[in-house]
């Protein structure tokens, strides 16, 4: 059972505030690009190139904004990348402390099983395709649920409101159509 929303909301809000107080607003989806760039540069060392001022790339997206993505991929020990690794560590420890996730849940969540049955293959396929669309959309939008929706709306950014409008306009009908049975 998750935390009561009053406790959980204040806790999560405090973390978002702490981030902007001490460093900068929270964001995650850029790091998928950074990991892609790290992997890509191993496969093709010409992908990221050092210049006199910093870094650039043969890929236009990695080279944009003065090559800041290329620079982060060349130096993965930077705040934003370590932040995401630490996020995984925090979630891992929290899950251990509350007794972990059950075996059936680990393969497919209860609500999925109630609507689509126990076979894992369909669940894995939808999770994979969902991941593709989510990250393509997040990079097109320039941020995701944490960067645009939470950090953005918290700062009263116009872009955060536009993003949230688009995300919920698609998410609510999709969820209502796909997950009719409750569990």
């Amino acid at each position, binding site marked *: 059972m998750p935390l009561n929303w009053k406790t959980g909301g204040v806790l999560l809000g405090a973390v978002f505030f702490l981030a902007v107080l001490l460093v900068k607003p929270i964001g995650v989806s850029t790091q998928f690009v950074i990991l892609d760039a790290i992997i890509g540069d191993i496969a093709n060392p010409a992908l990221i190139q050092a210049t006199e001022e910093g870094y650039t790339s043969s890929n236009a997206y990695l080279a944009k904004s003065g090559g800041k993505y290329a620079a982060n991929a060349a130096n993965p020990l930077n705040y934003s990348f370590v932040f995401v690794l630490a996020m995984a560590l925090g979630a891992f*420890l929290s899950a251990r402390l509350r007794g972990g996730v059950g075996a059936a849940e680990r393969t497919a969540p209860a609500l999925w099983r109630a609507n689509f049955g126990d076979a894992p293959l369909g669940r894995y396929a939808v999770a994979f395709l969902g991941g593709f669309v989510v990250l393509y959309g997040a990079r097109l939008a*320039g941020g995701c649920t944490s960067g*645009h929706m939470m950090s953005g709306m918290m700062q009263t950014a*116009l872009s955060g409101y536009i993003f949230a409008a688009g995300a919920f306009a698609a998410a609510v009908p999709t969820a209502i159509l796909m*997950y009719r049975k409750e569990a």
Partner: protein
Amino acid sequence: MTTIILAIVIGAAFGAALDRIGATNPNWIWRMLNLSNLHLMKTILLAIGTGSVLMFGGQMLGLVDVGHMSVKAAYAGVFIGGLMLGAGWAASGFCPGTGVAAAATGRKDALFFIAGGLLGAAAYMLSYPWWKSAGLLDDMAGGKVTLGAVPDSGYAGLTGLPGDVLGIVLGLAFIAVAFALPERLRRAPQGRAAEMPAE
């Protein structure tokens, strides 16, 4: 080095918070999005409101550095990308942050989400020039703007309202909506009581 320590501390706190509020569990994402249980929606709205009031309040008291704000640009692609993210979020039950956090809690389906995500991000890297040349990444309504003008932030305001005061008012509004939202908006299935989280 300090930066890395901060990344570890704040990142770990964020991951633990996501797990404790139920955001790493797709069931709670789906119950929020299919409107059968708004518990997580209330949590998120309260979090945005709390963060906003603390940040803008701290700025007005001179305790929070306005320079730490980072406002993203508004352009047509933000809405199109939002639609795509929303559809994938609802189908999979994960968003980028919660997908990584969920994999760390032991969910195997989340690993497939991450693999798909890495491929989707790579596909965007390759198609970026097309979106750019189509003009869908061009700034609209001033690009990097806040709803009001936040003093000394360097960002323009969409309106002439004082941005810090507006931020506190909107933050309080988010908190009010969190309290006002009912537990569910969809009719309960007949013959059985809806599952309610402990208050």
